[in-house]
């Protein structure tokens, strides 16, 4: 919100500079986001008088002017056509840095020296609404009574400093000049100068001219005043100056004053042309279904019963608190006006403003909450201004319709409580000074604070609120030196990781050790990922975001695959040829669509590799899973995005899948522009959680040596390693220690459709050193078993 330094001075004596003030406001909870000096671009611009104009000796369109700038005369060359001898004009001199970026310096134009430039209104940053004549296409001609040689900022009243303050939602009362002024009083220890709310009225009574009916509960208070014989004209300069400074366009006296009061007092006001109010009745009511209204932004809306309107006996005149209607607005022909000053329910205004997409200074103010007594102060301030400027006849009595006056609030708490919350001791004297500085009447007796809360502080309810008021004004820098021991007045609590984090960390460590880098991706994805991934099951039903930024991030992923494959594809596209990534994240599975219950969230670690072989990849996944005590078997996977022949699942005896991995389905690889041998895998952390702890069952180790034998057999392709190994194990019986496949060999010489599998078989006995004969007997038994069960032949 923009307020100005000079405006604030109407209500508090400020004895610090605007910069210092801005710092102090920021440090007490009102962050000043920008300090704008109105005259930042007006230095070295003065009021000058053109004494003499001559033609340029060398250029048809240029003129050479002698200009009086007070302390001396200067020569200025210009192409402007609207100047004349005796004209009073703004003159920018060498060193000036105008708002449009033009920097002035001495120069020669076609051989004749020019010591500056005349300025247009635009070059000074003003237009007609601020200063008459400022919008013309040419030099700004100033009134003759302007003092020659004066700085232009002073001459035009552009010497204020604007503070752009960020008002937090708990302080709607500070969305006003007086609100911030009150804060400054507390900060600087000054007294608040109350706004002048006095005026004189004529005999005629408002009530005899207008009736007000408050029909809706969304309007706790409605006040109205009638002003007759109104002068609708240009506002005086000081009003226009202030509105200009805070970025509001001047329109006419009445409209300007309602805006002036909005900025100054924080109370939105609305002015009606009284002659357009049919039946001289104002009715505050809920809109009818589809009730039409044309408003000042040139749009028409159809309202519903949730919207609040101000209407006459026939039709809606105003969308309450949001925007006025065309029919009843103030025009040059307006003779009598009705001023509205109301309190509306913030939720109602918020909903309507959001629904029709119209946000005005008024609605912005109402949706944060306007307090009960603000309506009265606001309307009285307006009447005071109307009276001071002699703009019309104020009728006697303000119409005031309300439910009930809110009770005044009172908070009682001990200084000890405040100090316990803050953990630092604020002296009682400071507490009392701070609270009264903020307009909170308070009384401290025997260390008990009694505080009567002013009506504009609806945010203050308990001692925590008071504690904040005290410390923010006392200064948070008191904590800079506060060095208490950690939790010195608290009980010891036991810290620890949750199971998911524990498990996740173990697996991540294993994967990092195996050469994988961790990636982090969005869990929101485009709506078409299942098509790209060849998925045609329940995962197609994704939770959709109702208000997405774009389709790219519109759904919650039901599979980790899209993020991983996109990351691999990005790396591949930029020339990273060897890429191993993993990601720890979630998928979101809705029970049904549209979503009525929270979806199930499953934690996964997904993996991807360009460059590894299937079996290297498999080893990495198994090494990660071996951080748990899961007992699993490996079966072919049915994941639609994986190659059906080069993919596997880790399952338990009930068929629950804990991990899946394999080469991408060629169609999916193509969809993501990935090489054919790209690998993808995922580990279901949620399913693995019950197995998170490694279990060790240590058996005693034989003291007799291990005997190694190698065996290569030729079998048909369809015989698997797992088949052969289980046969070997059972044939070795009690002497089995270990078996490892160390070579797979295929060659035409072996025959078609067969392969040679070479195993290293290791035998050991608990009770003796094995003899050659015993070992040979076992090996014969193994070979026999392989021949019998799988048709194997010795190679």
């Amino acid at each position: 919100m923009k307020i100005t330094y000079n405006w604030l001075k109407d209500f508090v004596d400020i004895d610090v500079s605007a910069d210092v003030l801005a710092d102090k406001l920021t440090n007490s909870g009102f962050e000043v986001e920008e300090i704008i000096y109105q005259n930042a671009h007006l230095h070295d611009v003065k009021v000058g008088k053109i004494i003499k104009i001559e033609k340029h000796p060398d250029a048809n369109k240029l003129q050479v002017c002698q200009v009086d700038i007070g302390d001396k005369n200067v020569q200025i060359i210009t192409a402007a056509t609207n100047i004349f001898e005796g004209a009073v004009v703004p003159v920018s001199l060498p060193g000036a840095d105008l708002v449009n970026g033009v920097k002035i310096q001495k120069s020669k134009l076609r051989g004749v020296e020019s010591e500056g430039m005349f300025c247009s209104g635009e070059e000074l940053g003003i237009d007609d609404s601020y200063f008459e004549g400022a919008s013309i296409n040419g030099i700004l001609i100033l009134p003759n009574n302007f003092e020659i040689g004066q700085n232009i900022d002073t001459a035009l009243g552009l010497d204020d400093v604007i503070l752009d303050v960020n008002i937090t939602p708990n302080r709607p009362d500070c969305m006003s000049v007086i609100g911030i002024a009150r804060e400054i009083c507390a900060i600087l220890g000054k007294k608040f100068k109350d706004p002048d709310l006095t005026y004189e009225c004529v005999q005629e009574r408002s009530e005899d001219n207008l009736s007000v009916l408050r029909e809706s509960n969304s309007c706790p208070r409605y006040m109205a005043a009638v002003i007759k014989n109104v002068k609708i004209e240009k506002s005086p300069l000081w009003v226009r100056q202030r509105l200009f400074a805070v970025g509001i366009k001047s329109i006419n006296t009445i409209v300007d004053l309602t805006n002036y009061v909005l900025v100054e007092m924080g109370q939105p006001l609305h002015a009606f042309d009284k002659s357009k109010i049919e039946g001289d009745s104002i009715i505050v009511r809920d809109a009818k279904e589809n009730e039409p209204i044309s408003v000042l932004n040139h749009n028409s809306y159809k309202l519903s019963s949730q919207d609040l309107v101000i209407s006459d006996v026939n039709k809606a005149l105003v969308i309450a608190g949001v925007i006025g209607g065309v029919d009843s607005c103030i025009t040059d022909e307006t003779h009598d006006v009705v001023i509205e000053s109301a309190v509306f329910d913030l939720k109602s205004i918020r909903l309507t403003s959001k629904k029709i997409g119209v946000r005005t200074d008024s609605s912005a103010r109402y949706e944060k909450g306007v307090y009960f007594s603000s309506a009265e102060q606001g309307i009285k301030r307006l009447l005071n201004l109307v009276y001071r400027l002699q703009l019309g006849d104020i009728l006697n009595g303000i119409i005031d319709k309300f439910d009930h006056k809110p009770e005044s609030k009172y908070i009682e708490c001990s200084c000890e409580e405040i100090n316990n919350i803050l953990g630092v001791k604020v002296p009682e004297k400071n507490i009392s000074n701070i609270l009264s500085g903020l307009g909170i009447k308070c009384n401290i007796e025997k260390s008990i604070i009694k505080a009567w809360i002013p009506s504009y502080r609806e945010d203050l309810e308990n001692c925590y609120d008071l504690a904040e008021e005290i410390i923010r004004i006392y200064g948070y820098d008191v904590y800079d030196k506060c060095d208490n021991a950690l939790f010195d007045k608290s009980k010891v609590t036991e810290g620890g990781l949750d199971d998911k984090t524990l498990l996740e960390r173990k697996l991540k460590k294993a994967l990092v050790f195996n050469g994988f880098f961790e990636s982090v991706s969005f869990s929101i994805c485009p709506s078409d990922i299942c098509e790209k991934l060849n998925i045609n099951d329940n995962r197609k039903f994704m939770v959709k975001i109702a208000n997405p930024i774009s389709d790219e991030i519109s759904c919650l992923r039901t599979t980790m695959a899209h993020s991983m494959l996109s990351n691999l594809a990005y790396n591949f596209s930029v020339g990273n040829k060897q890429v191993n990534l993993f990601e720890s994240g979630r998928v979101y599975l809705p029970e049904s669509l549209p979503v009525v219950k929270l979806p199930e969230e499953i934690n996964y670690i997904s993996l991807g590799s360009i460059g590894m072989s299937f079996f290297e990849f498999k080893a990495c996944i198994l090494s990660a899973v071996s951080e748990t005590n899961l007992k699993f078997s490996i079966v072919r996977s049915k994941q639609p995005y994986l190659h059906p022949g080069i993919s596997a699942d880790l399952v338990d005896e009930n068929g629950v899948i804990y991990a899946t991995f394999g080469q991408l389905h060629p169609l999916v690889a193509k969809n993501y522009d990935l090489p054919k041998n790209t690998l993808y895998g995922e580990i279901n952390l949620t399913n693995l959680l019950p197995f998170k702890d490694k279990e060790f069952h240590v058996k005693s180790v034989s003291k007799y040596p291990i005997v190694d034998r190698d065996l290569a057999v030729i079998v048909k392709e369809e015989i698997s390693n797992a088949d052969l190994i289980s046969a070997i194990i059972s044939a070795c019986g009690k002497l089995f220690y270990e078996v490892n496949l160390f070579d797979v060999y295929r060659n035409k010489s072996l025959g078609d459709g067969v392969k040679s599998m070479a195993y290293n078989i290791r035998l050991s006995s608990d009770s003796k050193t094995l003899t050659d004969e015993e070992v040979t007997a076992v090996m014969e038994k193994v070979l026999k078993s392989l021949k019998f069960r799988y048709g194997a032949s010795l190679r």
Partner: protein
Amino acid sequence: MEQKLIEIRDNAREELCGIKEKEGLASFKVKYLGKQGLLTSVLRGMRDISPEDRPKIGMLVNEIRDEIESKINLKEKEFDNVELLKELENTAIDITEPGKAHEKGGLHPLSQVYDLLIDSCVNMGFKVVDGPEVELDYYNFEALNIPKNHPSRDMQDTFFVSENILLRSQTSSVQARSMQTMKPPFKIISPGRVYRNDSDATHSPVFHQMEGLVIDENISMADLKSMLTILMRKTFGEATQIRFRPSFFPFTEPSVEVDVTCPNCKGEGCRICKGTGFMELLGAGIVNPKVLEINGIDSKKYRGFAFGFGVDRVAMVKNEIGDIRSMFRNDIRFLKQMK
């Protein structure tokens, strides 16, 4: 006899000096000490010596044999050493060829920072609590004193799924859930992913937070200060200072913004901290008693503090990452720099 022995000894000494390789040494050994060797043949002549001279001669023979033997051994070792040196020299490799190891991967900078932050908090007695990302409006807002249509909802742009279901905009939703299930005193942190309808170079629609909550009987702003000072020192170094500035959050009262000594310039003032020496990093405060009451904790007996911050930001500052989007692009050339 004695004369002859001395002669043999002198000859052996001389001959030994001339031997330059191992083979020569072997034949030398045979020549003097072998069965047919010079010294042995001298011994054979012992019987011709008078019995009273025998011990003397015998001693001399032994002396000479010992001398020759030890000299041969010494020489042998000398030759072995030379040979070994030669072999070592011959088997030298080019140590500048690249190492062949299986290369380690690395954690994402975000995880590294999370691990650091989480471990620091766990050491101070905090438990890690997890919660859903798709959340009820109730836990994300209402239970935290942000009623529907309240102005404070404007502080965050939220992604909605339905009227009452949304993507959590803060991990405080986990705090609300925890307050309803855990018995005070407790200390929890809730690290996790959050979502906001906002996207540019400094804002990502998906980002990561860590929030903390402490509930006990005598908690104060001073506890908050000392706890956060420790956490920030573990994160940015022991010289780190923090300071409070007033702010507003619906779930805390008093509410503060917490500034941390700029990790880039260590407080000297630089471009990143706009010359202030401090960086705005956390939001914190004393838990609003209304929030305690909404979630079933007796606000007369208990008090708490809460804090929260963006972890992406911490990771970016610590690793001098300029654009938040590069954190989610997962280019391994980027990730490799932080392994």
